[in-house]
């Protein structure tokens, strides 16, 4: 049983009335989980894809401008339009939002990986080669590790922007908390419902950011140690 707001009802911005119905609590939780799922899956696929693309760019530097340009182009597509374009191909499956969201992460993530690799000191690469690191081992144990500070910050940016992008996927009926928000608009602009959805998204974004920050600090501990003794 869900609460239907009538135009004459009291309609404050803040409050917990929205959560007094079990069905609405269920719906909110379901949407929040979907929001997290979509964000995590899209960013995860985005990271793998961006890593692969950045390796290609490293190998063929000439591809960089073209690739970044393409990403720029995708990023400038209005998200509503992109999801609409995907609709005939993916239907209402989860693939639609995941494909769309992943594409939007690429501008930030590919840049992050490319700039991250670029930030690796040449001397470390030369030393690694001279010591007898094979190519793959050098990327995994030296370059990726040293690129991590830049990569981590791009991942943080990409996840926050993805959290904000998920609601648009309501077009494919997988909008996460965006669904709650949209329903709130439809429900005579039920202010609490809209605001609660927004608050939920902000909390999710902050939590996700903090988690990645914590992971990042752990894998880049060396980077903070540097400041302790001046050289």
């Amino acid at each position, binding site marked *: 049983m869900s609460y239907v707001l009538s135009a004459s009802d009291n309609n404050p911005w803040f409050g917990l009335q929205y959560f007094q119905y079990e069905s609405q609590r269920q719906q909110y939780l379901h949407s929040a989980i979907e929001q997290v799922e979509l964000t995590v899956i899209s960013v995860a696929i985005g990271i793998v894809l961006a890593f692969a693309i950045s390796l290609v760019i490293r190998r063929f530097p000439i591809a960089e401008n073209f690739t970044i340009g393409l990403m720029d182009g995708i990023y400038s597509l209005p998200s509503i339009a992109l999801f609409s374009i995907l609709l005939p191909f993916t239907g209402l499956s989860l693939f639609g939002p995941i494909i769309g969201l992943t594409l939007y992460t690429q501008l930030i993530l590919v840049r992050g990986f490319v700039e991250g690799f670029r930030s690796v000191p040449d*001397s*470390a690469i030369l*030393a690694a*080669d*001279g010591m007898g690191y094979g190519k793959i081992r050098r990327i995994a144990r030296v370059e990726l590790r040293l690129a991590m500070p830049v990569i981590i910050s791009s991942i943080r940016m990409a996840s926050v922007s993805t959290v904000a992008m998920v609601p648009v996927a309501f077009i494919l009926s997988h909008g996460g908390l965006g669904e709650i928000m949209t329903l709130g608009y439809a429900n005579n602009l039920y202010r609490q419902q809209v605001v609660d959805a927004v608050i939920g998204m902000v909390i999710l974004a902050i939590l996700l950011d903090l988690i990645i920050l914590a992971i990042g600090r752990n894998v880049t501990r060396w980077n903070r140690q540097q400041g302790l003794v001046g050289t």
Partner: protein
Amino acid sequence: MTATSDVHAERGAGTPDDEVAIRLRGLHKVYDNGVVAVDNLNLDIRRGELVCLVGPSGCGKTTTMKMINRLIMPTSGRVEIDGGDVGDMNPVQLRRGIGYVIQQVGLFPHENIWNNVGEVPRLLGWPRKRRRDRADELLRLVGLNPAIYGDRYPAQLSGGQQQRVGVARALAADPPVLLMDEPFSAIDPIARAGLQREFIRIQGEVRKTIVMVTHDIEEALFMADRIAVFGAHGAAEQFDTPATILARPANEFVEDFVGGDRGIRQLSVTSVAGTALEATVVVDRAASAAEARAALQLRSRDWAVVLDEQRRPVGWVTASDLPDTGQVEAVMRGADGICVSTAQTLRHAAARILERDESWVLVVDDASRELLGALTLEHIHSAVRTPIGGDDRHDNDGDASGPADRTVGARP
């Protein structure tokens, strides 16, 4: 190829195979843009020898070095290490067996000092404990306390300390060959001089075959057993000992590159061992003054060295010091500051002479401290003008020096 490198190629070819650690044969490198970096180079580098490749920038010295561990592939020609053609080896495996030190140090910023030193052992699959023990040993060898520096990150060390770690890292898996690309040039001059001295000490302990690239002729003269002077176009103009390069530059290019004051600078690289010495009158410490005076008169000299039973100088006397009666030991002057050893250079000897009122110093054997003879400024002068050849710096201690005059040693 120049006439000089022909000459030295022939000489190099005469070096017995088992003494040669690294052999470069007809080495040629043309870059894609058509620049000839190395032009038909032949060098034989002996086991345990520190060879400096020196020359102006763009002369191909770094390219030559990088062809040894295959960071650069030669256009033609061969590099052999211990008789094996490196062209046939897996480059990754090859490099794990060659220590490598670069100018920018290139420590891994994300690893602590222990792990940085243990990189190659880790690639070779050594267990953790053995890596740590080896890292500790090497950090101590390069003068860093592992307990203090082991868990620091490279950015927490000074430039000089970082390069010490760089050297330790290169030595970690105990490779027989070390390649060093301007290892000390990014370090401030004061720390650099200390590091160079210390590296010579380390080399004395580890005795690696070392190829070191430098643009600094002073560094090469100071550190190298032999120097290959590269000309402008990737050919070796001369390959010889520092003393010979200073004394007999092969051509005008080498002469210009080595620079002025060659005579003075030659003193720093020429050992006292191998310089002609003058016989001196010696007396036993137990001799009487009368015996000493008789010995001096016989030889028409006015001073004599007083020796102990092991023929080590303990003092000296002049004719006018000697009383009519009594013992030599009672009137002799101390031996402080009048001796140099065969391990020291002519520069030390010259400085010692200039500090004293007398015109000579005594030369003693580095190990036994036994008297070999006296050295005067005239000897130093002639040593610089008619230099000793090839390898005399290392292996002819005392041969060329006249023995001290033993016949005069008077017994009581």
